[in-house]
């Protein structure tokens, strides 16, 4: 219960940050950070898959409402939410059976970075794929995915280091 409330707080904060500030960032015309998926990436390892899917859908839909992109973020975020448990299992050591929350401390720095990079990259590929919805401008799509991923990872890393210190 406390965990859920905590998560709702994070969601509201990140969605507001996303729609009010981050959505207006277009570095070089390509890079936009999509920081709200941080909530999805931080679900602990034993979470019910239905639960995380619903969270992903609602989160994406909320961002869509503000961005006038009905379904775009929702689709991409549901996809990420679907893959999150798979990724988490893939990037952690096999014999680790404890329940843990994804972080550099719990997983080790290198696996955590790989996990974040992969998760963010997949989300952005889906999102940008839906956004462009054609392969005609594949170079632009690639640039957008690449730079946005970079920016999102930097943002996530920033939040992680701030939380570590607190």
């Amino acid at each position: 219960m406390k965990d859920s409330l905590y998560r709702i707080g994070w969601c509201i904060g990140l969605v507001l940050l996303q729609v009010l500030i981050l959505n207006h960032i277009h570095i070089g015309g390509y890079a936009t950070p999509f920081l709200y998926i941080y909530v999805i990436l931080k679900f602990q390892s034993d979470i019910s898959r239905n639960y995380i899917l619903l969270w992903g859908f609602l989160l994406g839909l909320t961002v869509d409402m503000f961005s006038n992109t009905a379904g775009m973020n929702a689709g991409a975020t549901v996809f990420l939410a679907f893959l999150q448990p798979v990724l988490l299992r893939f990037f952690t050591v096999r014999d680790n059976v404890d329940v843990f929350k994804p972080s550099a401390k719990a997983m080790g720095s290198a696996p955590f970075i790989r996990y974040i990079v992969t998760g963010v990259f997949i989300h952005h590929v889906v999102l940008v794929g839906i956004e462009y919805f054609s392969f005609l401008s594949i170079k632009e799509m690639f640039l957008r995915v690449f730079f946005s991923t970079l920016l999102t990872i930097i943002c996530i890393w920033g939040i992680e280091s701030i939380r570590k210190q607190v």
Partner: protein
Amino acid sequence: MRNLLDFLIKYNYWFLFILLEVASFVLLFKYNNYQHSIFFTSANIVSGNIYELSSNVVSYFNLQSVNNDLLDRNVYLEQQLASIRKQERIEGNSFSKHDSLMNYKLYKAYVINNSLTQANNFITLNKGSTDGIKPEMGVIDGNGVVGIVYKTSSHYSIAISLLNGLSNLSCKIRGSQYFGHLKWKPGDAQYAYLENLPRHARFSLGDTIVTSGYSAVFPEGLMVGTVEDMLDSDDGLSYMLKIKLASNFGTLGNVRVIENLNQREQRDLENSID
């Protein structure tokens, strides 16, 4: 059969996943570009309100430049006004032809007696009822409001100076509609106090105080003075502004008496309510 059920239960999240993705894509194709629904766009009440709030906040960051623009504009208009005034003087157009003074008639008069130091100061003018002066006409000089005619004889009239405890002039800050009442306290002949100005009124020191035009004596917008200092009223519920009066009461000479041609009508109407 049992195996099938087991399978379905075990992999039920697949169905939810597909369902949610389908829902997303339905939304994507149905509402994107067409904006059929306001529910999923920024026009809905929640996101609309949040955006409104955000734009309110953001607009504050532009205040500096907006303010500069307004200052430039102000200087420009001030210059224009000065040139118009000059032209008016050269061409000899009388003040009374001015549009805003259409319903007002001006009489020339000269101050023959004046006091500054008493608790209730009066001004005596050299025109009386035979010249058309009647009580409750306004008196102004070149700089601003001076007083209000109180009593008239056939050739003279007495006006209540602004420097009088009985004087109660409805004034406002130029450029806004916040108004208060100008009162004078015995003592300094240069300053009077604007009382009952609401707490939320916006102004700054040096702002111009003009007549509000509510009183049926003076037309709107006649210069009264400038804000010198800001004080709290005695009850603490409103502002009291210390006003530096525009007219120099020590050197009053030529004045104009203003007659509001519609004054009686306005008074009758207002009294009919009571």
